[in-house]
């Protein structure tokens, strides 16, 4: 299995997400996943496009800033991935820790035959609970790609992890971390392009419609 990890680092937020992503890198190396890292100055659009073309990874991982329709490269001057070049993610598993990108970019990747793990709103965290936010942000990768759990189970287990951590944080007197842990968990989605039951369901449903309705 091959993976490409893109992790910009240029401001206070990416300083933390860069560290979170180091665990993904370490897990892949330990598990024998052939991972190529595009960090800091290498986390830019041309390098990402080249890596996706030459390496043709099974998994694309991104940790950094996102908007509804893109994942920002180093310095946030240019998108590393956006609607225009996301066809390069067709057929790949995409795993992100970034704000908002599962809103428009995720569905576009999904339409092109990829899967998309990401967040439909802002991903937030507080600095006095960084290990908990790292655990929450990374756990889905472990469930899916290291333990080999199904996409559905990986998502369910990840959401349970966000809930467990938020309750633990309340117990530890850290209400603010708990609040944003819970918010992140609610914003997490896994857009799954390989759910045959859904695709079949739609097509079969269409074929079963009365002819008059289909013509309309």
């Amino acid at each position: 299995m091959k993976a490409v990890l893109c992790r910009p680092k240029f401001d206070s937020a990416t300083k933390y997400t860069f560290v979170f992503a180091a665990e993904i890198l370490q897990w892949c190396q330990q598990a024998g996943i052939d991972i190529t890292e595009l960090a800091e100055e290498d986390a830019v659009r041309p390098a990402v496009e080249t890596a996706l073309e030459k390496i043709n990874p099974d998994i694309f991982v991104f940790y950094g800033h996102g908007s509804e329709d893109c994942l920002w490269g180093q310095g946030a001057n240019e998108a590393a991935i956006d609607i225009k070049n996301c066809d390069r993610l067709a057929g790949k598993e995409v795993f992100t820790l970034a704000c908002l990108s599962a809103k428009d970019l995720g569905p576009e990747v999904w339409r092109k035959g990829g899967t998309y793990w990401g967040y439909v709103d802002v991903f937030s965290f507080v600095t006095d609970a960084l290990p908990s936010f790292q655990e929450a942000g990374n756990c889905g990768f472990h469930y899916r790609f290291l333990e080999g759990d199904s996409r559905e189970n990986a998502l369910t287990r990840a959401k349970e992890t966000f809930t467990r951590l938020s309750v633990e944080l309340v117990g530890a007197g850290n209400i603010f971390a708990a609040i944003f842990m819970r918010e992140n968990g609610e914003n997490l989605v896994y857009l799954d392009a390989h759910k045959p039951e859904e695709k079949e369901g739609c097509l079969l449903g269409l074929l079963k419609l009365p002819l008059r309705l289909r013509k309309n």
Partner: protein
Amino acid sequence: MSEKNLVSDKVLITEIKKTLTKIANNNSSWTLVLGRETLSATDVIQRLDKDKKLRKIVLTHYVGLAVEMEKQGREKRFGEDNT
């Protein structure tokens, strides 16, 4: 939203601000990373008055967490709720 609810929200926000004030006094490096923004505890106190989205997130999950803890406590005491 009823007047009663508005008062309850006010009470909750006051309590949350008290926690933030304690944080501000005890941990000056505490930061809320909100997407591209980084806010100190004092910044968050001020934002809670004018940022409706932030206020809603905080109130929703504050109450949601209370419900979650009540649910877990009930299950611990009486077993899993199957209804």
